[in-house]
């Protein structure tokens, strides 16, 4: 298995760094899937993650000026690696003002993803910083658990309000309750509700807009004002919101009543999907 890539464009480098910072906030350990056209950061819904799953996808040619990979086999031309997300984001942090960044799969005592950063320096010589990120290669037989999650037909699909606002609301709510209800309808309204013995707090967001539904069948028998709701762990929602340092280009949320909430964000050309299951 081989992988090597090079990023020379400053904007691409910064974008890639931001994505990796976001991933580091969303998942302590994650899977990196390398395929000829794409890179994916994956978190599958294991018990350890509390049932949360994540699927982040980016097109490699939007970032890399050079990209070569050789997967597990010709039929399965993919590589699945497990790594500590913070290592990658820390390695990329040094590339803030770099001339170039090279990333490749190596084996130095142990399998690593080597990130090599060529820095600008005052003197004529190049200064190079190298980070060897330890990785675990995921065996072929476990790949089936790491596929793109199926998105069930949502009951309601709605565009999200400004994430910063949502985050500050949820942050305050976290002090009062450990779980919250997120509900929305097809009339562009979204509510965040918490309820305890002493107090109920609801924050209403209006005029958000709803994307057109793929299947119109369910919409007929529903009053557009009818709220689809799901009960979730507030900390999981907060973790998701805290990961969004930059406001996304597009953000929508799909609610499957009493089952889960699915967030789908687009950061320029990088797509992020985050699934939070309902509390049982």
């Amino acid at each position, binding site marked *: 298995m081989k992988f090597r890539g090079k990023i020379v464009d400053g904007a691409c480098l910064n974008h890639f760094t931001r994505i990796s910072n976001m991933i580091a906030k969303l998942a302590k350990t994650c899977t990196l899937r390398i395929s000829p056209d794409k890179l994916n950061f994956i978190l599958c819904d294991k018990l350890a993650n509390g049932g949360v799953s994540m699927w982040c996808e980016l097109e490699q040619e939007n970032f890399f000026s050079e990209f070569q990979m050789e997967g597990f086999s010709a039929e399965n031309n993919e590589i699945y690696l497990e790594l500590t997300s913070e290592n990658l984001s820390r390695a990329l942090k040094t590339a803030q003002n770099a001339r170039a960044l090279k990333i490749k799969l190596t084996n130095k005592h142990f399998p690593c993803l080597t990130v090599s950063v060529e820095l600008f320096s005052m003197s004529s010589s190049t200064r190079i*910083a190298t980070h060897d990120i*330890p990785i675990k290669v995921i065996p072929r037989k476990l790949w089936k658990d790491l596929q793109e999650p199926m998105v069930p037909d949502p009951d309601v699909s709605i565009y999200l309000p400004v994430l910063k606002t949502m985050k500050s609301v949820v942050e305050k709510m976290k002090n009062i309750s450990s779980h919250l209800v997120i509900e929305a309808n097809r009339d562009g309204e979204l509510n965040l509700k918490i309820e305890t013995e002493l107090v109920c707090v609801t924050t209403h967001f209006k005029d958000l807009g709803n994307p057109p539904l793929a299947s119109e069948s369910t919409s007929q028998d529903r009053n557009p004002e009818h709220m689809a709701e799901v009960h979730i762990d507030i900390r999981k929602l907060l973790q998701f919101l805290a990961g969004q340092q930059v406001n996304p280009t597009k953000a929508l949320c799909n609610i499957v009543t009493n089952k889960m909430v699915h967030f789908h964000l687009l950061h320029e050309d990088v797509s992020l999907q985050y699934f939070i299951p309902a509390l049982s």
Partner: protein
Amino acid sequence: MKCLVTGSNVKVLGKAVHSLSRIGDELYLEPLEDGLSLRTVNSSRSAYACFLFAPLFFQQYQATTPGQDLLRCKILMKSFLSVFRSLVMLEKTVEKCCISLNGQSSRLVVQLHCKFGVRKTHNLSFQDCESLQAVFDPALCPHVLRAPARVLGEAVLPFPPALAEVTLGIGRGCRVILRSYHEEDADSTVRAMVTEVCLGEEDFQQLQAQEGAAITFCLKEFRGLLSFAESANLNLCIHFDAPGRPAIFTVKDSLLDGHFVLATLSETDSYSQDLGSLERHRPVPQLQAHSTPHPDDFANDDIDSYMIAMETTIGNEGSRALPSISLSPGPQPPQSPGSPSEEEDEAEPSTVPGTPPPKKFRSLFFGSILAPVGSPQGPSPVLAEDSEGEG
């Protein structure tokens, strides 16, 4: 003793104290004829730091009042640091700082004269003490590096702030390499990320070192001096010798002198054993031969020979293939090659593990009364005064 610091030098003094606080918990303050010296040592005796401020650094400097002996005192670092805690405040509001030591009252008085007529007086209690002296001589070190602190500051940026140790070495083509060092922990399943920074020869004002020379020292302690040197825009000089011998970091300008002496690691890096190219050597001989005060006459354990794994990367197409390093053999006593630990037992039966520093650093031997507990020092011509009431 009485001295007066004014203007921007107050902040410099404050920064120096901050630097020293990274090393030890007690500050030894000694007014000498050639200036005020502030010294400290860490609890495991593996790091020593000293700043000497020349009389010209002060607006007024009086080492002793006539008729009195030179006073020396030892203060809690925390107490002294609290006076200079906020560097921002020092810079903005403090106009003068007066430090006086009165033998009669057992108080070190630090008085800050601030703007708007505010005067803050700190009365710090101190203990009499003997002089803290570390035995070291930069001139004895064969390898020297000198670079602006800023260059070194930039070089350590990629390393995680929590990183304890770093290896500094000379690679092929006179490139200086800094690499994160992680103690091999057999139990840990989570490996740490390894970071390496490579600097070219041109970044250094002086580079006098053999290719393959390398040492591992505590990065956290080094950062203390580095931040001081960066803020004062000074050049930092690193003198080092074989692994196991202390490394000496110095900064200097016309008004002050700073020395940080850090112990370096001296043990076999177990990774390196997989690479056939590295040989295991016998323990560094000088350690056994001398009982005289010598910088490496250490009281402590582990004298395994030390290999720094600056090995070539397997399968790495990069041009930075680093040579593997072996200790340049000095005069070696004849010994049969065996596992270093066995030899160590044979070769140094007198080694009694003193208070073992957690990381197998050697303690610096000071040739002073501040010898570590339980150390089996032979009769050595001690360079510092007798211990009086010590140990």
